């Protein structure tokens, strides 16, 4: 296996009004190999989302480097990184353009990272493929293909975000609690769909979750974060041995407060 993502000494310090330094990320070192599917656990304020934000470039870091596919991307702008990294957020509203139709959203995703020119968008040519993609999810998204994304249900909107994130097969997929805002049943369905897509496209993925069960069931590596550091890193074998009980116990000992 080759290293896809290498994070070295990643630190983000925020100075609050009382002039106290707050280490959101505290020298995180982390290597992600091609084909790994890592689940990320940790309490609120552990730095999980900030870790993601530093990888995508949507937040400025204090120090450290981020290497992706042997490129030092630390100074790359978010727009440039988006060729290689895609992301699904927790909030269904964040991943789609509400006033644009489902098909229009998908078309934007298809052109991820491409230079936008004055060429006609050619939506018709792509529509059949889009309908097929939507049908494969099985939640009726294809019937809404010409409806504004803002009219979709939360579950449909998240599955659209997921389709958009995985369409061009970026090098790295980041899922930031992307099922958390949905009801349990929809959440479970979306998680299964996510897993299918990742397996099928052999994607490298990091997934933040608050569902301990999901963290154990899915993926082939598990990391736990606390106070801006990675405190536990289990490989596939160790992860398989881990039970929900062990994990809960571990969290109690560490005085982590997971929100299940």
């Amino acid at each position, binding site marked *: 296996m080759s290293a896809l993502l290498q994070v070295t000494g990643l630190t983000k310090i925020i100075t609050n009004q009382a002039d106290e330094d707050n280490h959101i990320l505290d020298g995180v070192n982390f290597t992600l190999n091609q084909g790994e599917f890592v689940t990320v656990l940790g309490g609120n304020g552990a730095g999980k989302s900030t870790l993601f934000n530093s990888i*995508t470039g*949507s937040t400025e870091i204090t120090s450290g480097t981020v290497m992706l596919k042997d490129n030092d991307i630390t100074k790359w702008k*978010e*727009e*440039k990184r*988006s*060729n290689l990294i*895609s*992301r699904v957020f927790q909030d269904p*509203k*964040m*991943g*789609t*353009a*509400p*006033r*644009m139709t489902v098909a*229009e959203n998908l*078309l*934007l*995703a298809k*052109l*991820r*990272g*491409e230079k*936008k*020119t*004055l*060429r*006609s*968008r050619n*939506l018709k040519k792509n529509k059949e493929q889009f309908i097929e993609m939507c049908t494969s999810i099985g939640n009726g998204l294809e019937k809404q293909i010409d409806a504004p994304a803002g009219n979709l249900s939360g579950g449909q909107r998240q599955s659209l975000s997921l389709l*958009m994130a995985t369409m061009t097969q970026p090098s790295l997929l980041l899922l930031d609690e992307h099922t958390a805002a949905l009801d349990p049943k929809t959440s479970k369905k979306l998680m299964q769909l996510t897993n299918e897509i990742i397996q099928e496209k052999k994607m490298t993925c990091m997934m933040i979750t608050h569902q301990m069960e999901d963290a154990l069931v899915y993926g082939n590596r598990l990391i736990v974060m606390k106070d801006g550091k990675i405190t536990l890193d289990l490989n596939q074998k160790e992860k398989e041995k881990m039970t929900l009980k062990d994990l809960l116990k571990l969290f109690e000992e560490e005085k982590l407060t997971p929100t299940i």
Partner: protein
Amino acid sequence: MIISAIAQGFLWAVLGIGLYLTYRILKFPDLTTEGSFPLGAAVAVTAIVSDVPPILAIFLAILAGMGAGLVTGLLYTKGKVPVILAGILVMSGLHSVMLFIMKRPNINLLNQETLFDLFEGLPNYYDVVFIGVIVLVILISVVLAFFYTNLGQAFIATGDNEDMARSLGIRTDNMKILGLVISNGVIALAGALVAQNNGYADVNGGTGVIVIGLASLIIGEVMFKDLKLGERLCTIVIGSVLYQILLLGVIELGFDTTYIRIFSSVILAICLMIPQIRKSLNLGTIIGRGEKE
């Protein structure tokens, strides 16, 4: 009289379409408008009195407006100046630019050939209507064609969900600059047309025009809901004509035109409040037929 209101409505609709690109697509009010509109007028009129053919003069006006939009866009995206303030700065600065171009506060077009003289055969006002229709057809077609390119879609996405757009690799700063450039080009075109119709350009000709432009946009919106982009652009024209008819009505009632601006503001304020008023009174669909509740 009504035909003159329609004629005016068509010319001012150009302004509404320009404003739509920023106010509705990018979702911010661009105050550069009050500078780029009279700038377009100043450039076109100065060019015409310098014997430049009217059509070329209009193109020069559009370019000037685009330049103004570019400055606002750069201040906003690269300089991180809040967009309202960036617009105010440019608007204010353009006052001097216009004085520099015209060398005096106003120029009139007496005995000069304007765009409207190209259609002398038509009766009064009909020439304006005719030119208005031609300009609007071309303008709406071009704007629509742009919307349905990959670049246009990226532009719309930037206004609709900037975070998402950026996460898909769209250079949102460039899109905002592009929007401001196109928008102010269109607004300057409106200025150039209105000035030729009025027969003069004045450095203070921009005061309150943003209210007129927004009024046509909002009137169109409160009347028709849930439209496609093309239909929406057409409702701006309808809104603009209705607004002019409203003003005409006010003048016919014997209102002193010196104080006309407060009416513009009141009309716009009412239109902006209609969704709220409708909600609190639960009137439903008296004005907005087909609206979803």
